[in-house]
């Protein structure tokens, strides 16, 4: 079990039961669990949605769409069954927050799923875990079975005449199914390829029924919002960015780990105080603020940067999944770009041309470039390739590959130039040279 970290600046809402044995249902109840669900059963769907709107909770998957609004889009009447879908396909490099939720607090996910179901009038929820999280699936499955045993799930939840069922499902190992419609395809037993939108999931989703699909962290936050009240949750964060967020701090910091901090928390402070500063006394070179798909930020760009969707967006990057990757001055940015694009090349589903071919050519070019076989026009070509993928692909994976690449070339052009004309990587001691 990974070691839990903590810092005095943390505001523990979602993570309040981490490390307290809450995977055990009795312990979870002892810690106040399932009260939120009972409250929601009494208050009814409209009240739930109002509380969610008041909380100004925004989707923790990365896009930051207001959760209450998303739930309100689901039609009240539907000929087809409605579904709640929990996206636990956490695959964005630099992100490891949902992992802790499934590990330490699986019942919060179950509770959040039931509450979402009550809000939209669904009778079935699916919890979809990333393929590599098979060991967490066992924990999740046990929690679901325990909830059934207690009568919290089933035909008459909590003795009411309301039905709610939960089905868990493991993925097969594809980053792409983190995209909501690809996840639905996968769940339906098909190739994990995104769907054409519109129609959006709220109207035509899983098995053609209206579907709410939320990130696992979003769902796990829901019972806490119900417990503390939407307004109280909103008050923790910054404007239009309610509450706290689990930030996964990784890379060259002294104390990497998952920290729950209020939305809008200063990034520099996050690196130097919460994360304990750059390890080995080195200097900060750059930071990726929201998972590998978000454009890199330079030290001077994070001086007064509050970590919420709006501020990071204004700074030219994205808050994304909250995966803060800290890069020290001994890191080769070309290699970092190559590692990043290699991931997207490997994970591209291959459906559309710009992503399928673009990620591959970027990887090939960067591999050769980093190995010292680059020529001057390669730098422009790499940027050109990435810019021509941006906004042209079928789903956001293409953008996720293009955006960081553009950022690296633009902000570290000099470092690219230092690799030119047969010069070895200035940081070669870290690197095994790939041979083209």
């Amino acid at each position, binding site marked *: 079990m990974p070691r839990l970290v903590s810092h005095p600046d943390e505001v523990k809402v979602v993570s309040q039961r981490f490390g307290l044995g809450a995977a055990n249902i009795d312990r979870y109840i002892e810690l106040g669990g399932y009260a939120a669900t009972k409250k929601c059963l009494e208050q009814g769907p409209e009240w739930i949605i109002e509380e969610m709107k008041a909380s100004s909770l925004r989707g923790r998957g990365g896009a930051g769409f207001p959760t209450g609004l998303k739930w309100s889009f689901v039609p009240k009447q539907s000929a087809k069954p409605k579904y709640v879908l929990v996206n636990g396909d956490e695959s964005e490099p630099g992100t490891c927050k949902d992992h802790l939720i499934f590990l330490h607090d699986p019942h919060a996910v179950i509770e959040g799923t039931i509450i979402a179901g009550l809000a939209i009038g669904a009778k079935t929820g699916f919890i979809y875990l990333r393929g590599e999280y098979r060991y967490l699936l066992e924990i999740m499955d046990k929690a679901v079975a325990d909830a059934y045993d207690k009568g919290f799930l089933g035909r008459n939840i909590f003795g009411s005449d309301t039905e709610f069922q939960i089905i868990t499902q493991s993925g097969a190992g594809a980053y792409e199914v983190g995209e909501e419609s690809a996840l639905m395809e996968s769940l339906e037993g098909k190739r994990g390829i995104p769907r*054409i939108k519109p129609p959006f999931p709220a109207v035509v989703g899983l098995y053609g029924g209206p579907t709410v699909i939320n990130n696992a962290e979003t769902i796990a936050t829901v019972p806490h919002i119900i417990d503390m009240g939407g307004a109280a949750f909103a008050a923790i964060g910054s404007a239009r960015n309610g509450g706290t967020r689990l930030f996964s701090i990784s890379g060259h910091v002294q104390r990497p780990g998952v920290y729950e901090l209020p939305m809008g928390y200063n990034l520099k402070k996050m690196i130097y105080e919460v994360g304990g500063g750059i390890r080995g006394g080195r200097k900060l070179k750059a930071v990726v603020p929201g998972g590998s798909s978000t454009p890199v930020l330079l030290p001077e760009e994070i001086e007064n940067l509050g970590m919420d969707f709006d501020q990071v967006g204004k700074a030219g990057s994205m808050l994304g999944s909250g995966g803060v990757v800290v890069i020290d001055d001994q890191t080769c940015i070309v290699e970092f770009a190559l590692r990043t694009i290699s991931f997207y090349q490997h994970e591209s589903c291959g459906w559309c041309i710009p992503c399928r071919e673009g990620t*591959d*050519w970027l990887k090939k070019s960067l591999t050769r470039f980093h190995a010292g076989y680059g020529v001057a026009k390669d730098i422009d070509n790499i940027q050109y390739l990435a810019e*021509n993928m941006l906004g042209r692909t*079928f789903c956001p994976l293409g953008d996720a590959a293009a955006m960081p690449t553009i950022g690296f070339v633009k902000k570290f052009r000099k470092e690219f130039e230092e690799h030119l004309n047969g010069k070895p990587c200035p940081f070669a001691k870290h690197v095994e040279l790939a041979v083209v």
Partner: protein
Amino acid sequence: MADVTFTVDGKKLTAPAGMLLIDACRKAGIEIPAFCYYPGLSLQAACRMCVVRQEKVPKLQTACTTTVAEGQVFTTESPEIAQARKATIELLLGNHPLDCPVCDAGGECELQDMTFKYGAGESLYTEAKAHRDEQQWSPAVYYDRPRCILCYRCVRMCGEGMDVWALGVQNRGVVSVIAPNDVAADGQTGQLDCEQCGMCIDVCPVGALTSGSYRYKTRPWEMKHVSTVCTHCADGCKVTLGVRQVNDGSEIVRADNRDKSGINNDFLCAKGRFGFDFVESAERLSKPLVRNAAGNLEPATWEYALRVAGSKLKEIRDARGGSAIGVIGSNSTTNEENYLLQKFARTVLHTNNIDHERTADYAAFARALAGHKDKAASLRDIATAPAILLAGGDPTEEHPLLAWELRTNVRLNRARLYIANSKPIKLERQARAVQGLPPNGYKDLTAILDRGESDFAKAVMAEESLVMIFGQEFRGEGVEALVAWGLNRGNVRFAYLGDHSNSRGAADMGLFPALLPGYVPVSEPGAFAEYPDLPQTPGKSLGEMFLAAGNRELSALLVVGANPVAKPGVNPADLKNTFVIVQDIFLTETAALADVVLPAASLYEKSGTVTNTFGDVQLVKKAADRAGVKPDFEILVRLAGSMGVDVRALVPFGKGGVTADLGQSRGAQSGEADRHAVWLESNNLEPKFSPFDPLATLDEIARLVPGYQLDRINLFGGNDVRTEPGFVPVSALAVSTGDTVAPAHDTLFTSSTLGRYSTALNELQRHQAREMTESAAD
């Protein structure tokens, strides 16, 4: 949907709301490039070539998924859009082998065309291209992954279009490949276990899927393209033959229907696409053969062979009368040839001993529909009918185009298909309800419907209108009872399924011992009274002719494009004492017994018209050429000439040709001059110059045969023109003999005698047999 108005490139366009932008633009003549979009198949939005800019939308949008609404403003060509398309092509060309100089698609490749338009002329990459070896999936289909741009047209065509689902995508990302359904143990190679229709090859925008019969044979620009009609089954697909000059004539190298003309749009089955190669068979006859004194067939000149045949026919007719001569016509020759054959039999040989190998009881169908106009369903009616009842038959095997139309109608128009059959058939997958019947239970179908007890019967009876398609299980009174039930129910149209490319035409053109063209009885010939010396007593049927020959009552038999000796129940020894003349393309079992064999042109080497089983008449155009052979039309005219007949009486060519003396029966009209010339003039037509011009006979057909007054603009323009079987006055109908009907039971890869000479079809049969053995072993 109500029409909406929107702006594209500054032009105001109007289209129904919700129409796809790419379709609306194409309709208005604005071409938006696309690889993955294919009309009629599900949307992919994968190739990103159709990107356009929509006002007030931040990103470029795909025209294949954008639906039009009132007031929208689009730009489809701009530097930004051209750059996006160019960048996509650059990416595609990155791994594309650029082996265009040897690629089958070179010259008719959508990737080439778009590269030409958007100019991705310079390679950005220095890395090696990804390579994979080419795979052969079946005798018909090869796959070259490096050329593949993964547009998934083939996958969707095979799955959605054909309902075969033999193709899929394997792996992900840049190593994705299209893979066939029968994957080998290595997981990398495979075979296609499918209907081998070749539609996947046809829709491939590049040279990734190539055809076993066409690959590396020619450059596209070396071919000329002739649009004609397929010679295999009775559905009558339009087929575009790619023809190339070779030493001994012109050779067909490819068959497709890329111009999407005709009833079949781009559809062709394995037979239509690959089964044309019988024309190139080494067993093809190219010289007339005459049996010599030693009893062997030996090559002869046309003049000699025709003289032998003509003088013998004349001798027998003059000595023993026309009743001593029999004529058997063809299911695959043209209407003009069939018409000419029966006219030759009746007016030159003076016999009604004429028949053909009947594969369906069209005479009973005509009688059942007599007097009821517009009750026959053309294939176009079937393609759009909201409800269809299919009784008997197995269209997937025997009528691939009909099966395609039914599937498409169900898929795109949500048509309701009902199936009654004695065996399970594949089309049940599209059916709303299915009624199983015992093999001899088809006669009870109407009673089952009337009782209305089963879900099937309830659903069918609840339909407002219905197209009833029925198979050869229905004959004689069975046809009449079924049609009578439908006519009584009201709002029903009918179609009857026969077997060969012009079986319906053979019946319509009067290859019957008792029926003239248009099912007019010989005993009451009506307009055909103008035929000189028309015998008015019914002649012998095919079976009766063989019996008569065995009894030495039939001295001569002329067989045109038929192989009756291969039929079960026919005794070849019956012909021992009969002088047999055979016109055919191969030395068939029948031709091998003949005294004179005249080598005929195939349907792909002649002109004329054919009628499919739905009564749709289409123009046949000469595509290929072969030294030594002649069209049956010309052979018949020359045979008549060699008998000393004035051929103007047979083929109305030139001026002042036919004078029809109607004699006593018409009194004042007696001695009336040249009715054909009068008809031509009244129709503003000129007489034809050549005695070998089938159009001269088409004129006569139009003048005399009920139901064949065809719209010439459509017919000559290459469209299908429907004819009516239900034109015969009820009083004039003879009794049908349904017991002489014998269906051919051809399958996807067989085509009766013709198919035996197709290398491609034989290979496909062997491939299918192997696949079936393997799947049985699995």
